[in-house]
């Protein structure tokens, strides 16, 4: 049986993610937050997320992570599946 050998290509380069800083603010630390935030960032404008939205964001990232991981495993599966088998037998006879 003649099989076409498919070369395995290199994987894409690793992701390089930027750090982000999360602030959790409630009535307990609001004043302190405003003060320290302004001091650190030079402004008092910020983007806020509700707790529910944070949860949703987390779940979205989890979903993306699952997809990446599964996609990767499927690629690994195909890579293993197309690896050519050994052509010699125990007797040294070529099939």
């Amino acid at each position, binding site marked *: 049986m003649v099989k076409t050998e498919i070369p395995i290509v290199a994987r894409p380069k690793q992701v390089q993610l930027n750090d982000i800083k*999360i602030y959790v603010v409630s009535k307990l630390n609001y004043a302190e937050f405003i003060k320290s935030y302004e001091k650190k960032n030079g402004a008092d404008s910020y983007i806020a997320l509700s707790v529910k939205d944070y949860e949703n964001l987390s779940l979205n990232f989890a979903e993306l992570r699952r997809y990446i991981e599964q996609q990767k495993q499927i690629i690994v*599966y195909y890579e293993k599946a197309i690896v050519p088998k050994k052509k010699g037998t125990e007797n040294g006879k070529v099939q």
Partner: protein
Amino acid sequence: MIKVYLFLIIMGVIGGVGYGGYMYYKDTQERIAILTENNAKLEVAAQLQEETINTMIEDVQRNSKLNKELQKELQIAEGYGDQLRATLQKHNLTHLANKKPGLIERKMQNATNRLWDDLADITNPNGVQPNTTGKGSDGNKSGENGNTDSSKTKASPAK
């Protein structure tokens, strides 16, 4: 004169029988040669067929094994999200954020950092593949809820 005719007849018969025998022998040898050749071809064909069948059986077994491994890995990849959902359901993050914003902030930050690390590991072309499992489980809890120390810790903080 009769003797001569008789001799000729006998010689003719003997010659005919001899020629017939020779032709029969020749024909038989040719047939044997053809049959031997056919037999050799059939043996080669049978061997090829057997090898093809064996190859197909091996392929089926190999693909079945690979498919099982893939299903297992795909299932493992679901772990992170499942654990995260469980953790978020288990803990009231709003309540915890109101009561202990500093603690939750730290845990969320750690979990987020760990998630970035996990994503970097997952996409590392030279990374170890099989271990995504273990990481995944840990990563889940930690990733979402935040503690660097352990998945559990993270989970707790989240809610």
